């Protein structure tokens, strides 16, 4: 298999003991679904920390120069967006990317995970539905996150390296659009999992095909087009939101009259009758 996933991620041990193969799985997209960040943020962080100041400026300028292409790609094709974005990593060493991935995950990504999303992963896991990450983010960021979440299997985009340095190209299959769906079908077939019993969670209309693969697709914080698709296809919609703040107003014991108030003749300093 050519994708990064399909094997136990190395590093820190998974928090749960090994289980026999499960009959059901939940496939989660990452950016916008489990975290309130996107791929561009990860790229900027990585390139802004990649080397000496001069090198960083050069990388960031390179990324800035790609903005028009990224914008056009975003409007047309998620695969093209990934390919264009990852070109900016050309020349960065594998070791540096791995360490930056760990750092980005620990310092930034984990703090931006939706708490409700984590809760849902755990609830699903408790119900025997094992989590799988399927994302267009780069493997050097997803691997430490998967370890953190105790997720054994994931699919992420991989850079092609030559003599230890990124070439700026992505290894096939590029995790975007239909390729995500194909990967999930392949994954399920290998494990004798029926996708009709599986759950899929994603946020973007580019993931429509990915979601349609599963018997239980769920649109999470959907963009306008995915929301429209979810409505027409009758997919459940979930929102992972931050807590709302409250507006303080006047109290009932502040002495102001209610519209038809009782005369408070019995009120004493201790509040007793």
């Amino acid at each position: 298999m050519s994708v990064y996933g399909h094997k136990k991620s190395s590093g820190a041990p998974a928090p749960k003991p090994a289980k026999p193969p499960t009959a059901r799985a939940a496939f989660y997209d990452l950016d916008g679904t489990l975290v309130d960040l996107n791929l561009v943020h990860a790229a900027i962080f990585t390139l802004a920390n990649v080397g000496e100041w001069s090198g960083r400026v050069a990388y960031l300028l390179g990324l800035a120069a790609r903005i028009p292409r990224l914008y056009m790609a975003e409007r047309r094709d998620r695969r093209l967006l990934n390919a264009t974005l990852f070109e900016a990593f050309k020349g960065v060493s594998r070791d540096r990317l791995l360490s930056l991935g760990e750092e980005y995950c620990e310092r930034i990504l984990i703090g931006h995970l939706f708490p409700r999303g984590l809760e849902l992963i755990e609830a699903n896991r408790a119900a025997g539905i094992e989590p799988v990450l399927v994302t267009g983010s780069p493997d050097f960021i997803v691997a430490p996150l998967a370890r953190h979440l105790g997720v054994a299997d994931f699919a992420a985009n991989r850079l092609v390296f030559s003599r230890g340095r990124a070439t700026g190209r992505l290894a096939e299959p590029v995790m975007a659009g239909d390729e995500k769906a194909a990967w999930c079908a392949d994954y399920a077939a290998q494990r004798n999992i029926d996708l009709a019993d599986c759950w899929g969670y994603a946020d973007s209309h580019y993931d429509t095909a990915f979601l349609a693969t599963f018997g239980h697709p769920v649109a999470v914080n959907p963009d306008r087009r995915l929301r429209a698709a979810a409505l027409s296809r009758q997919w459940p919609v979930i929102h992972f939101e931050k807590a709302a703040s409250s507006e303080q107003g006047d109290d009932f014991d502040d002495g102001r009259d209610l519209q038809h108030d009782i005369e408070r003749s019995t009120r004493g300093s201790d509040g007793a009758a």
Partner: protein
Amino acid sequence: MARPEGKLKELKTAELRHEVGARSELVVKLNRRSERRIIPYGEEFIFEKLPVGTRVIYPPPPLEPLPDADQAIRYALLHPEDQDPLFAQLSPNMRVTIAIDDISLPLPQMRRPDIRERLLNQVLQTLADYGVDDVHLVIATSLHRRMTEAEIRRVVGERAFKQYWPDRLYNFDAENRAELAMLGKTEHGEEVWLSRRAAESDLLIYLNINLVPMDGGHKSVAVGLAPYQSLRHHHNVGTLRDSHSYMDPTRSALHRSSDRMGKLIHKSLNIFQIETAVNTRMYGGMLDFLHKNEDRFTDWDRTRLRGFQWTMRNMSSELRRNVLHNYAAPYGMIGVWAGDTEAVHRNALARVFQQYAVPVKGQADILIVGVPYICPYNVNSIMNPVLVQCTGMGYLFNMYRNKPLVREGGTMIICHPLRDEFHPEHHPSYIEFFHRCLAETTDAVELEKNFEQEFARNPTYIHMYRYGNAYHGVHPFYMWYWGEPARQHVGRVIAAGCEEPEVAARLGWEAADTLDEAIAMATSEQGRSASITYLHLPPLVIADVE
């Protein structure tokens, strides 16, 4: 001091029969010269000719509302039934929880100020006057969807909202295990679970609205603040099959079960129940013709009806839905009582029957009902096919005492377009229930046995219930069980005006393009002399069938 509602005739149950006897004009037999009848049809109202001889049952006219609702509430708080007045039960530093009926009542939503706001303002002021600070306001949603911030603000009013939201004013969460307490088991082995906050309070105050006699009583606390672990003991096929009808608490196993639970709760909890009743003034102003006998329509009524139909037809479905759900009914409060749950509920029930009951002689072979755009479970949402089933076979079929309006083995005609349409945020589990479970079987016992647990414990549905605005995963099953007495009783159900016959087939119904076709289908089996009854809505009516 005379009761503020003293202007209304106080009726004992025995007198009720005589009182409603004066309402004989509410049962009309159609002849050749009779006008067409208004029938709710989803988000529209159709105006259809019914066969000669059809019996039409109209709801009683609205009782006069209490002249001063706030004064009546004040009186009820000071003169409760079988309990000390509210103020006499208070002391500083005590823990008080106020539970409030959720958005499922009344229907449609009522004009502001909502009765609950009026009640709440006076109760909170009394608590404040007596130095009670530890007060929580809990929306008694049970397994219903969480009300949104705007919906809660509308119901409780600005003042309570600003002071208590969101820390001390919130929706009940039946899946927050840490916030649930088990109080024990009834003599029938029913587990009684309750909101921990309520269970550990020194005083629980319940604010209720009775729209129909099914509401209120012990059911308020025992259901409204209870999780699935409790509800499964009465929201099940066996119990609901033994309820004849839901609107007659004396003959309802559902109510007997919730009464047992309520009595157990009362042993460990001090409950001050406040119940209210509203009249049948569901539509007012430009829409008041919807209440009228069509034979008495004036030209102005017909013009308004045509204008209303034209407007509804020419709106986009989304706009039409918004307009309808934003409509606020000019309900008037016709009674308020406070104190001991059973004593309070006796009074409330008598008043509700006084408002809604109509004596009807004999059952019909064919019962026609129109399912409107709204039911308790789709406020600000979509009336999906499972809810159409619940409204038609669950609620409208059960609008009786003594005997059902349709004879055993008879035919029920339900007017609704029946579209395969669901709200993905409010009714996610309904979608799977309809497309997966009902595709396998429509047998309620099989559904209960094979699927209920899976849906009740589904993590995504639980998540959407707790943090979104979704009905609990098990809710569509309850909606299906709700129609079980009707399924057991009638021989045939025909969906009239059905736009998607496959939806009707999924529900186990037959489909007809028009009401005429549905009636022809029904009479082909029941015979040309079959008796037909049309239950006229809006507003609501309860038939006392002899």
